[in-house]
């Protein structure tokens, strides 16, 4: 082959050291390559000395340019644009919190109020005003998610919102999906019939085996687990096998049961599990000694759980782990799956809006939880404000300004800044200031660990693991935006 064809120049990239002898390098497009120390030096100083195969790889992944670059630069622009799709295409996730009532009294829960505690619900006119704002978003596909408390306690408000949105959509013609997040304890077959005819999916919490789940989610009758499973079964029987997705929250008590938790999901017919760490702020912060755990404790737990998930897959039982899936999506797919926590600028407010029972609009779920602890500083405005007004709020401006990963202190040189960015809402919750340097935040530490962990796995991956990684990386089927 004629090497004279090559006369490339270097494009900007970042790298992260994996050990003495090797790094993972990531280009502006988000493509990665593993380099030895020698290759890293050659890339920077004397790219023409790189072996031809490596040079081809580095050109094709936007580390080096070829002779001319009319096509390559155009492609690079389109790759970067595709990564920003989630935050640039308009708010696609709209969370409505019709009520704060809930029958549980979870130790780590920031928000819920007892059943008998009235006055923590939206008014019908607030529901209507929220729906009007939703349609001001430019997004073509909208997910409307109902949260609580337990929103099924105010099924009347859910129904009001869905009926109104369906009616308005006859004119707006968006692709709409509804999700109701609930314990499912109050679920009735009548509700299921209604959900089935309105393309509503259910999302519930399943923390693991009965003992653990009941410990995490106490109710007076001590049968939270059994009642949630009954709800899942009821929903599936009427709405179909894919009607319910489940999420788990890792508490200190969970740490001892990674395998049992995964097995519980398989046993109950789920094809997806999402190993989520606890957000260590809000109400939970007060109980941090009692409930909290360190990052290494979590990652240790997580690795064991993931290992179990992979074992199930190897045995032919399909099970997708949500955290791995979202990291793989970032590392391997040209399409952004729309996960709102890993966006730059932040997805808070740009991809998500929360219409809260208290009459205010918040930029994310975490932000409205923060308000429950007395910090209402992240309010974008009131329900009824137009989307344009909400977006023009000083809070929104600051959320954007502090979350550009290529500019923020610490992030600008981070190898992972194509996949990630500062989380100002988390910083506000953790340090009381959204301008806190990202490097100090839980968000950053956890995600750095995750990126590094999965890059190491990819470096040594066999074909079967790669098949799974790419399958999970694909946005289709990813249901917990």
């Amino acid at each position: 082959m004629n090497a004279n064809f090559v006369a490339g120049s270097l494009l900007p990239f970042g790298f992260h050291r994996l050990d003495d002898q090797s790094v993972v390098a990531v280009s502006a497009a988000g493509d990665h390559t593993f380099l030895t120390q020698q290759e890293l030096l050659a890339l920077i100083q004397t790219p023409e000395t790189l072996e031809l195969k490596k040079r081809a790889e580095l050109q094709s992944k936007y580390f080096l340019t070829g002779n001319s670059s009319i096509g390559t630069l155009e492609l690079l622009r389109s790759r970067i644009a595709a990564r920003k799709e989630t935050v640039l295409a308009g708010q696609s996730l709209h969370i409505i919190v019709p009520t704060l009532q809930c029958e549980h009294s979870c130790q780590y829960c920031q928000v819920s109020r007892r059943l008998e505690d009235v006055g923590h619900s939206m008014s019908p006119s607030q529901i209507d005003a929220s729906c009007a704002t939703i349609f001001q978003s430019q997004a073509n596909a909208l997910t409307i998610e109902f949260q609580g408390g337990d929103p099924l306690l105010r099924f009347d408000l859910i129904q009001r919102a869905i009926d109104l949105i369906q009616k308005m959509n006859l004119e707006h013609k968006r692709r709409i999906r509804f999700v109701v997040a609930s314990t499912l304890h109050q679920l009735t077959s009548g509700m299921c019939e209604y959900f089935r005819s309105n393309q509503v999916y259910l999302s519930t919490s399943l923390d693991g085996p009965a003992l653990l789940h009941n410990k995490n989610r106490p109710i007076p009758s001590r049968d939270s687990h059994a009642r949630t499973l009954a709800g899942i079964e009821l929903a599936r029987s009427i709405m179909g096998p894919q009607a319910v997705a489940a999420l788990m929250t890792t508490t200190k008590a969970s740490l001892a049961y990674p395998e049992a938790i995964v097995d519980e999901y398989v046993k109950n017919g789920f094809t997806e599990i999402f190993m989520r760490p606890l957000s260590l702020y809000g109400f939970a912060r007060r109980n941090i000694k009692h409930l909290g755990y360190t990052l290494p404790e979590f990652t240790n737990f997580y690795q064991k759980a993931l290992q179990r998930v992979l074992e199930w897959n190897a045995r032919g039982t399909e099970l997708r782990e949500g955290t791995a899936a979202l990291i793989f999506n970032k590392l391997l797919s040209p399409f952004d799956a729309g996960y709102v926590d890993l966006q730059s600028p932040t997805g808070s407010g740009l991809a998500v809006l929360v219409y809260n029972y208290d009459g205010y609009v918040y930029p994310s779920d975490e932000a409205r939880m923060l308000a429950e602890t007395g910090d209402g500083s992240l309010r974008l405005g009131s329900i009824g404000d137009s989307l344009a007004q909400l977006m023009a709020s000083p809070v929104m401006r600051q959320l954007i300004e502090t979350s550009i990963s290529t500019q923020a202190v610490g992030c600008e040189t981070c190898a992972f800044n194509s996949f990630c960015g500062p989380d100002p809402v988390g910083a506000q919750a953790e340090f009381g200031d959204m301008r806190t340097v990202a490097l100090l935040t839980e968000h950053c530490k956890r995600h750095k660990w995750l990126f590094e962990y999965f890059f190491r796995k990819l470096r040594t991956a066999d074909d079967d693991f790669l098949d799974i990684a790419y399958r999970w990386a694909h946005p289709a089927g990813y249901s917990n935006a």
Partner: protein
Amino acid sequence: MRKVRVRTHGVEYRTVARVISLENLSAQWRPELRFLVRAADAEGITKVAQLRSAGLTNLISLTSSLHVADQWQAEPVVETGGILMDEDVVAFADHMNHAHVLYRYTDQHHTVFLTNRCNSYCLMCSQPPTKQDDSWLVNEAVEVANHIASSPHTLGFSGGEPLLLGEHLRLVLDTFAHQHPSTRYDVLSNGRLLANPIYAEHMLKGLSERVTWMVPLYGHADFLHDFVVQSPGAFEETLAGLLNLRRFGQAVQLRIVLIRPVLENLAALCEFIGRNLPFVREVALMACEPIGFALANPELTDIDLREWSAELSHGIRTLKRAKIPAILMNAPLCALPQILWPYAHKSISDWKRTFAEDCATCRVKTECAGLFSWHHPGKFSMKIQKIEGIINV
């Protein structure tokens, strides 16, 4: 293109016509078309002659009998082989000694050849480009569009590089789309000229949605692709062209010809496609039968596909991971590992397709793409090995 021996008199210029029976003539006759009317005997020829003198000057009679024809000076086209079929669209002229069958409805594959000129110079080109002016092919293509009686399911345009025709290509595409709105069209093009946004807009804006662009890509870096197509800058132009195709919502099939420098980097190329060109409809991996330029570059093109199973499997697995459909073309089953058989297409055109002697007793012959008709066992040819024993296909 099928060639059929014919004898003509007085057909000075290459003429396109539709073969038709006398009975069907009244139903299909249109003033702007030309017809080759079957006349079995003297009576038939007389009938055609009468119609002509009555003003239907666009009729020429077609007979299979030299004897009958000889009773008439000039005029009838004689085809004794009985190969021409009703509704064939044919081109003929005195200087040709044969007729080209430009279109036959019952063929599996239909191709309209648009130009012999090209702006690339691929190592393995099966039809090395020429420079001479062949713009008459455009006119003939329009004639073909007009003369086809029954629209094909799919029709391909090939060259050379059709984009060199500029607005004339658009004219051809629009004519076909207008005359045969239900047909799907494939355009074989390297896409390079579509890098120019203004040209791309003229070519693509408002184009029929039933067109698929079949664009070759031979490497994931410029020096790999440009080497295969022997044209510096081609890679970047093709990429920019592909992006313009996407901008105008055009369907794209990428084509990868399996020669040595391509196979050596196949998985990396497939990964590049998955990450950067995920909008393509599919990727076709095509075995290369050494003819044309390929004969001049045997060290690069004369390969035994059976020795490249690992690369092929890896490439296809990479595409599968990216959820990009892959197909294997021109590859006989015995040259592929069995796990790749589901990807193999019977892609060789009927009139080009043949089998070797060994194939007669092969267990999978009915599922096999077969070989190109110019295949002859020897150094420069597809290496095959018949499949014996029990196989579940």
